[in-house]
């Protein structure tokens, strides 16, 4: 039989593919012990940093650079209270922080720390008018800049919007990244599940104190049960021979499973005031004795959203630009998911360089 006939014979190709698959399986099995070892050695955070401010459990990280900052306005990253903030500086080539550091911004990141049961009464007022205010004041004092730029991610974005509305004089530019603003949409499952008819947040907080990390993690997993619980492990097993994939997978999974509890007071206010009553778009969201009025935001605004976000759908973030008093406002929609917006290759190649340019033009 000629070579041509052998290659084109379906039986031969089937047989060969089955043998290849068998060998692949064997190679994956051999690699298992190595994978366990690798999973335990994941490094958290890529860019060098120092702690410049501490308050209770909060730590403010300052990212170190070999060169002097090129822009006089410092930039502060505000992450959500739900997970750890190192997703913004996950690893080399997948770090949002490093984009800004390399572009010459004096960059800071708030690490809220993990709350304990003693923190169950902390409210949005404590976080926004307390911790955030102190951090911004400290950075302004340290750098001598009259204002700082703020970049808020997810829940941190919502909090940043509230902070800016309450203290506009301290914020030069506001960048929101997948931030929930208009909770009227029923596109996302979280909006449906947290409906007042189905979820009694007062009873929940009364019984549990803080919103437990396990509860939050289970809820997030349930948003895409087939992908998270079935497809992901299978996909990992099939690509277990690819070192780069394995490395990315473990880094990502380490972060995804590194949940922290949300203080009960904040959780209650967030669910009740935003998910159930949608007070932010009505300009009547109370934060302590203040009322958040988004029209008071007059600084330049960049709203970055993820097209396939199942946690904070675009419809939840997009109305922000129409609600603020700013004239200089821009939106970027990235074809990615909630996390891909920060670490995805498309966002890393296009969205973040664009965001750096946008901020550079407004930070002089």
């Amino acid at each position, binding site marked *: 039989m000629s070579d041509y006939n052998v290659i084109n014979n*379906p039986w031969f190709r089937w047989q060969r593919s089955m043998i290849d698959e068998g060998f692949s399986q064997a190679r994956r099995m051999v690699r298992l012990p190595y994978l366990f070892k690798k999973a335990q050695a994941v490094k958290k955070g890529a860019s060098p940093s120092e702690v410049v401010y501490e308050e209770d459990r909060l730590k403010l990280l300052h990212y170190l650079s070999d060169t002097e900052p090129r822009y006089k306005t410092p930039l502060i990253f505000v992450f959500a209270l739900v997970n750890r903030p190192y997703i913004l500086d996950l690893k080399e080539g997948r770090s949002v922080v490093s984009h800004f550091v390399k572009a010459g911004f004096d960059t800071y990141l708030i690490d809220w720390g993990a709350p304990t049961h003693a923190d169950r009464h902390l409210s949005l007022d404590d976080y926004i008018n307390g911790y955030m205010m102190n951090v911004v004041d*400290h950075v302004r004092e340290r750098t001598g800049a009259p204002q700082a730029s703020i970049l808020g991610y997810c829940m941190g974005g919502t909090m940043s919007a509230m902070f800016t509305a309450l203290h506009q004089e301290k914020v030069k530019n506001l960048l929101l990244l997948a931030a929930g603003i208009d909770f009227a949409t029923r596109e996302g499952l979280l909006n449906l599940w947290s409906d007042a008819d189905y979820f009694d947040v007062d009873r929940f907080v009364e019984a549990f104190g803080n919103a437990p990390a396990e509860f939050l993690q289970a809820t997030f997993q349930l948003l895409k049960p*087939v992908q998270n619980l079935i497809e992901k492990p299978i996909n990992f097993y099939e690509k277990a021979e690819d070192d780069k994939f394995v490395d990315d997978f473990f880094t990502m999974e380490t972060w995804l499973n590194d949940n922290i509890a949300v203080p009960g007071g904040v959780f209650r206010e967030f669910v009740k005031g935003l998910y159930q009553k949608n007070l932010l778009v009505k300009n009547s969201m109370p934060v302590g004795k203040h009322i958040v009025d988004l029209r008071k935001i007059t600084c330049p605004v960049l709203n970055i959203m993820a097209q396939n976000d199942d946690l904070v759908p675009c419809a939840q973030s997009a109305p922000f630009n129409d609600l603020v008093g700013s004239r200089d406002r821009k939106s970027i929609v990235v074809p990615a998911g909630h996390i891909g917006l920060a670490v995805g290759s498309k966002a890393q190649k296009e969205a973040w360089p664009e965001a750096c340019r946008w901020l550079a033009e407004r930070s002089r």
Partner: protein
Amino acid sequence: MSDSTENAFEQASAFQKIWMETFTKMAQSGFSFTPDSTPPEFMRQMRSGIFQALSKSWEEYMRSPQFRDTMKTMMDNAITFRKMGNDMMTQAHHSLQGTARADIDDLMQAIHHLETRVLDCVEEVTTRLDRLEEKLNLKAGNGASRGTPRATAKGTKAAGKQTRTS
């Protein structure tokens, strides 16, 4: 037919739909088989089809009132169970004349309220001082603004032990 029977039927049909669509997708993948596709690749295609169908059906199911009712019942039970546990532990501690977590919580809340009240007063005093300072500056013909604004009293609310390590 009673409401509960109707609900049960609706739940059953919603659940049945998931599997029906899954098997349909599986069958569709089977029809797309050609001699050119190798068995592992064909299996992957079939699997992908099944997962797509499952994913879509689960999403629909999780949006349904039936699922949300089930979730609500589960949450209510979890809360009740947790409360029972908390109450039992509190009673046990109290019967041994010890301090329960509920007592510490109450104390923490009282301190939190007290802190809020004190800080509100301090904030008011700070605002008054600022106004006085401005007036004095204006009188002295030195209307220029001060360098760095003073951190408001509200800003230190959450600071139990504040340290700066710059």
